Each structure stands twice: as structure tokens, then as C-alpha cells.
């Protein structure tokens, strides 16, 4: 067999590995019920910030602890803990994406994405 065919085969195999390797690496958009069924699994949860419950951040006690509550698509509310500072303008965010895993009743987030509807798209003068 010519080397070029071997190369072609190796390349195709490597490309398959590169493509299908993401299968085990991807996370899932989920809700809290899914978390209960799959304990410890890293997920993305899209939810609404429960503004009435407020947020907790006391830098004097611990600058790397921030917590708040979100409600998922089914209306289940859970506390979210982030071991980092409170994101800038967090109160203004309504829709929040939290990435992490549910540990009992508390969602341990490794990062938070915020969608501020009015941040870049002001429609009022």
C-alpha cells in the first residue's frame, strides 16, 4: 500500500476522533429535575433570577462567595453558589445561565452567564 493511502486513512481516523471526541465533552441544557436524576453531572441551566429572594455577597466575610436563587423552566427554585466575586450589575440581569452541578439542594456553579436585555440594545430614548 502506498504511504499516501495510509496517510489518508490515518487522517480520516484522526478527524473522526477530533469530531466525535466532543460527544463525551459536551454539557447539556437541563433543568433541576434532570439534575436530580443525574447527580453530579455538569449541566447548563437557563433560569430566571428570583429577585425577591435577593442576592448574598459579603466580601468582608469571603470575597469568593456569592449566592442567589434561580427558577428553572419548570418553576423549581434552587440556591446557586458561585465561588467568585459577584458579577458586575448582576441585579440587572433577568435571564441567567448557570454552569455547574447540583449538590443536594444547592447548585454549585463554576461560571455564570448573564443576559442583560437592555445592556446593548436600548430601545428607549
Amino acid at each position, binding site marked *: 500500500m*502506498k*504511504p*499516501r493511502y495510509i*496517510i489518508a486513512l490515518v*487522517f480520516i481516523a*484522526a*478527524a473522526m*476522533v*477530533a*469530531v466525535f*471526541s*466532543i460527544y463525551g*465533552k*459536551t*454539557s*447539556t*441544557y*437541563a433543568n433541576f429535575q434532570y439534575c436530580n436524576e443525574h447527580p453530579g453531572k*455538569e*449541566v*447548563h441551566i*437557563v433560569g430566571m433570577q428570583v429577585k425577591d429572594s435577593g442576592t448574598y455577597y459579603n*466580601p*468582608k466575610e*469571603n*470575597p*469568593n*462567595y456569592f449566592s442567589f436563587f434561580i427558577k428553572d423552566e419548570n418553576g423549581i427554585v434552587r440556591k446557586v453558589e458561585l*465561588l*467568585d*466575586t*459577584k458579577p*458586575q*450589575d448582576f441585579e*440587572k440581569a433577568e435571564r441567567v*445561565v448557570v*454552569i*455547574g452541578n447540583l449538590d443536594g439542594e444547592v447548585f454549585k456553579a*463554576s461560571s455564570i*452567564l448573564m*443576559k*442583560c436585555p437592555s*445592556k*446593548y*440594545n*436600548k*430601545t*428607549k*430614548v
Partner: protein
Amino acid sequence: MQYTGEHLAIGNLGHLSIVLAFTLSILSSISYFFATQKGEEDTSWLKIARISFLIQCVAVVTVFVSLFYIIYHHYYEYHYAWEHSSNELPTKFMISCFWEGQEGSFLLWIVWQALLGALVMWKAPKSWEKPVMAVIAASQVMLTSMILGVVIGDIKLGSSPFTLMREAMTDAPIFQQAGYLSMIKDGNGLNPLLQNNWMVIHPPTLFFGFASTLVPFAFAIAGLWQKRYTEWIKPALPWALVCLCVLGVGIVMGAAWAYESLSFGGYWNWDPVENASILPWLIIAAAIHAMVIFNTTKKSAHASAFLAILAFLSVLYATFLTRSGILGDSSVHSFTDLGLSGQLLIWLLFFIIGSAILLIQTWNKYTSNKDADSLSAREFWMFIGALVLLLSSIHIVTVTSIPVYNRIATWFNIDLKMAPPADVIQAYHFIQIPIAILITLGSAFAQYLKYRNTQSLKSFAIKMLVYFVISLTIGGTLFIYAELGKVIYGILLVTSIFAFLTNTAYIFDVLKGNMKAAGASISHLGFAMMLIGIIFSSVNKTIISNNNSGFTLGDAKADAENILLEKNQPMRMRSYIVTYLGDSTVAPNIFHKVHYKKVDDKDQVLEEFTLIPNTQINPKMGNVANPDTKHYVDHDVFTHVTSGPKNESSEEDTTSLKDVKSFWVSPGDTLHSKYAMLVFDSTVNLTGSEKNTSSADILIGARFTVFTNGGEIFNVEPMFGVKGNSAVYFEGRCKEAGVVAGFLNVNPDNHKIQIAIGERAPERDFIIMKAILFPYINLLWAGTILLSLGTFMAFVRRMKLAKNEI
């Protein structure tokens, strides 16, 4: 209604120019098409094609200038100016307004593409002008259609940057008034993150890189179309090298911007928008390798065409990803959706399908080379290099496209719910690091092989073995000494050093210092140096602001990156003593002074410096924190303040001082509170002073010196006055001493004054900050400079070679 005060002429000129550019691009493309089909005997089609393209160039420059004029003069009747600029914006950042919005960044791309087209018309070999320009003009049709801003029925064709406010927000009640413009005094402003010098030059450079992928693409398409399957490669190669060089510089400028002004503490985050910029770079680099192989050996012409076409398509795909809104939550800095995703998709599919048909139709026209593949031939390994670069881009595009799979699945009523990897960095690294190892390994030895066949394999093997053993020794030592941890980093370090050494040696050993031919060696050694810089600065990146106070925070400890620093309270962080010295304000920025003292084991001060990260107060877009970095030759100290005291609105203390203890005192008397001692110095008449802001009839201040239990000294000056028939009081506060003093009364007989002292828990101003050491990050920047320099040298050489042929 007749509106007053609007400047409609400039917008009309701009919009007219867009329509003109769009129409002329169509005319030029069609004329070039017929000129190509007619061949030699035609001159009239060619004339029309050239003239229309050149006028089109003038038109797009007019569009650009018109939009700048509008931004510069703060014509907020235009939505684009209102949305992206404001009155106080410095002129240099007005240029940055062009790339905050979609329309402006398309415009930038259009201008570059027009100028590149004119350059091709002027410089490219005459036999190539017609078919190549037909493709370039067609691409210009695509881009100008994106900012056309014409509505036909229900279809919106493009989004014009000259849309008026009253057209963009038809429902707003303000537009019921003819003089509405006098009420819009200021624009929304430019995102503070984009108000950075790197952001002035990074986007134009990057967009030039994107635009320039078109030229090799156009040559390849022209070659396939005109059945000149291999002739296109030589004239296209210099353009491909320019593209690689400029695109690389543009990407690195973006990395430098992220490093200097973003909070995440790094230069590359595998964000989809970043990935979108590196895809074409990888593919054009692969294409260049294939094209260089062809130039010497006449092999891999087919691969050259495929890769040159793919590079441009990857730019279109990346544009679709970042501008259609499909990335949604997965990118922090993609553009907002303008409702152009359908139009973008149509263009993307048009170019993909068109190219695919051409490639498939001509598939059998490339004669397969009958020569046996020799493992000792340079081109064999170069080709593998191109494949590995392609592999890298396949992996990146696969992971970046996750939101696209979700969207496609919805067409089949499947809710895929696939989210980007929770650990994004790891998901990329576990494929990309092995790829980097292969690339450095290949670039280390391939140049030492001869094209077609290497006779002196033995001396080659010995040479490589010697360099490899040296690299293994150096790399192995550094791996252990620098505690890099994972073996894979060690392997990459060794292969990078190997590539650096062999490519450096090649210039002296083989080229005998002939720098004209050293472009490839310099870019390869630059790439290796860049990787070495990346290994050290990212693997050995050290967060020094983590909790080292002694008490444990449980799980939190490992992740703790931020620390609270009270004003004037030095804190030890590894080998630094860090003190927050306070703030100074130059609106809209608050500058936090953070003083660093580097000390040795015996606390001897080795050096001192002050970093000034700032917070820009921006009520419209939210406050933005900007880090500051101290640069050394061998490391950087990065400091980011996530929140300072003035970020939070300070709560006013409303406790009444009337309820607390009060004392009658004479000058020299001492009062004791829980945390401090107060000495009454004297009273002063402040009636005529600027402190009398409430214009009281009489105002007296009582001066106290406050000695805290910690030994610090402050002053407080409560004030008492009379205005009309009533008394007025102004408290004196000292947060650090936990003291609030009120001046309640004066006894005119004995000159004693009545003072109330309230006690609070002492409070200090504080910042929450993150400090990171980046070792050897300058190797990364220096490496990228060498990489670009090498590419540029290769461009100069290939341009001369291409010229000599004609």
C-alpha cells in the same frame, strides 16, 4: 411631519453610495464574467468592468467617510451614531465605533475588499484579471448587500448604518414632535471595554486578514473555472502569505487587548468569536504549505485549490456564526442579531455550493502523481503538516458549532439541548496540544529534508538526533525545574524547543545566513517560541491573590482568586507585600492605587511599583473594570479590581445623634470612644468659607484630631450653624475610627461646646482584587512577532519569484 434640525443630506449621500456600490458591484461582476467568456477579442466588457469596479471603490470610501462624519459631528438623528458613540468620546475611539456594530464592521470589510480588488486589478498578471476580478466583485455584491438597508415586500435586505432614529424606533412617542432632536443630547456611547488603544487597530487589521482570504480563493476559483488548474497557484501564493501575516497580527492584537483590558486574566479563552478568527488562519497556513509544495514538485495542486477555497469559506462560516445570533449564550462577545441571519445563510450556502460544484466537476482533471511517495521527501512531511493544520481547524469548528447542531436538530423537531463543554479549555486542549506537538515536531525536521528525495539520510538522522537530545535535556530540565506537572506539557515543551533550535540552526547551517530565503525558518521558530511562551505563561500562571490568611474556607480555597484589601493595610501575597493606597477620580474613571513591594525571605524590599487598575463608571452600560499590568522581561504582574468601595452606593447612616451621649468640652479636652480617642483642638468660623454650602447665617466648625486604637491619625470637623430661626447641624465622620461626631450647641458664656459622639464599627475603604503572575509571557509576544516577520519575508520572496516568471 416636518422635523427640524436633522442633517439628512450626509445620510442620503451615504445611503445612495451604498446602493451605487451594490449596483456597480453587480455590473462589474457580470462584465468581468462576460469579459472572461469572450476571451481575447473583447475590450468593451473589460472596460465597463474596470470602470464600474473603480467607481464602486470610490462609493464605498464615500460611505465610510459619511458614517465617520456623522459620528464625528454627533448627529444623533442617526441610530448608528446614537447607539455607538457619545459626546465625550475621544476622536481615536470614534474609529472604534465602526466595529461595535454589525453595519460598521461590514463596512470596514467592504472597504478593505474594495481596495484589495483594486490592487489585484492593478498588480495581478493580466491573464488573471478577468476571472479573478469576477469572483472578487461577486463577493463585493454579497458584502454590500449586507448594509443595503432596502426593504422589498416583507424581506429586509441588509441593514443600513444610515437608518434614522425615528425610523429605527417608530413607536417612541418622542418622534411625535418636530423638534425631537433637541431632546436627544447625547448618544448611548461606546462600550468602555472597546475604549482601548488595541481596539483601535485590532479590528481593522483582523478585517484586512479576513478580506484578504478572498484573493487566493478568487484565484483558485478562476483556475478551476478557466481550466488552468495549476497555473493560478504561483500568482496566488504571495496574496496567501499576506493574508496569513496580517491575519496572524490581527489575532495577536486581539489577544493583547483581551490580556490588557479584560478581566479573565489571560489572552485566549476559546470563545467562539476568537475561534472564528483562528479558523481561517489555520486553513490558509495549510493552503500555503500545499501551494509551496506545488511550486517545486508540481504535486498537491488539488489540495491547494481545496484549501485556498476552504479558507475563504471558513471566514464566511465564522461570519455567520458570530453575526447571526446563533451563538446566543455561548459567546460573550458576538454581535447582536440584526435579523440578517437568513441573508447570511443564503450567501454562505451560495459560496459553499458553488465552490463544491466546481471542485467536484474538476476532480478528475488533476492528474494523480504517479511517482512513489518518498518518506524522505520534504513535500511528504509538509503535506502532513498541512493535514495536521486542517485537523486542528476541524476540531475547533466542531466544538464551536455546538449551537448550530441544536438549531439544525430543531428542524427535525428534536430538542438536542447540547451545551458547550463545561470545561471549555480542557475540551480544546486535549486535542489541540497533541496537534501542537505534531506541528512543532514536523516543522523541526521537514526543512532538513530535500524535495523529492533525501540522499544523505544518515547525516540528516545524526543531526536531528543531536538537536533532539539537546532539546530533551533543556526541555526536561525546565519541565522539572518549572514544575509544569502534566507530562504532555513536557512533551510539547521539548518539541517546541526542538523546533526552535533546528529552525534557528537552519538559517546558519543550511542557508549560510542568506536571510532572503529564511522566511519559513523564522516563522517556524517564531511559532515554536510562541508555544514555549504559552506553556510557561498559562501552565505556570500563578494567582497570588488567593486566600493565605490562615483560616480555611473549605472547598472555596482552591477556587479563591479574589482577595479583600483594606485601605492602607498591607497584605502579604507570596513574595509581594501589597497595599491598597486609595482612589483618585478623573470622571468617568476611578483609579485604584495598588502598591506592590517585592520582598525576599528576610522581608528586604527588592523593588516597588504601583499599579493603577481603574473602574469606569458608566450608568448606561454598567461599570467596567480595567486591569493594570506591570511588565517585566521575564514575567508580568496582572492586577484586576473587581469591585472598589465606590462601586457600591454607600448607604447613608441615618441614626440620630441626638440619642447618643453628649459632652460639653473646651479646647484641649479629650473624649474616648470605643475605637478611638478624640482631642478637641479649636472652633473655627466657617460662615464665609466654601464649606458653608447651605448658606447658613452663621456656621462654626469644631476641629478634632482622632487617634485610632491602631495608632492612625485622622481629623473630623462637625459643624453647627444658625439659619433664620433654626439651628443646622453637619456631622463629622471618620469611617476608619468608627466615629461620628455632631456639634450640637455653643455656650456663649464659658465658650464650651456640646459634642455628641456616635460609635460605629470601624470601616475602611476596600477593594476586591485579583493578582496573577504570568511568567515568560514576552516569549509569546516575541514569538508572534517573529512568526509574522517570517511570513512577511516569505511574501517578499514569493512575490519576486512570481514576478520573475511572467
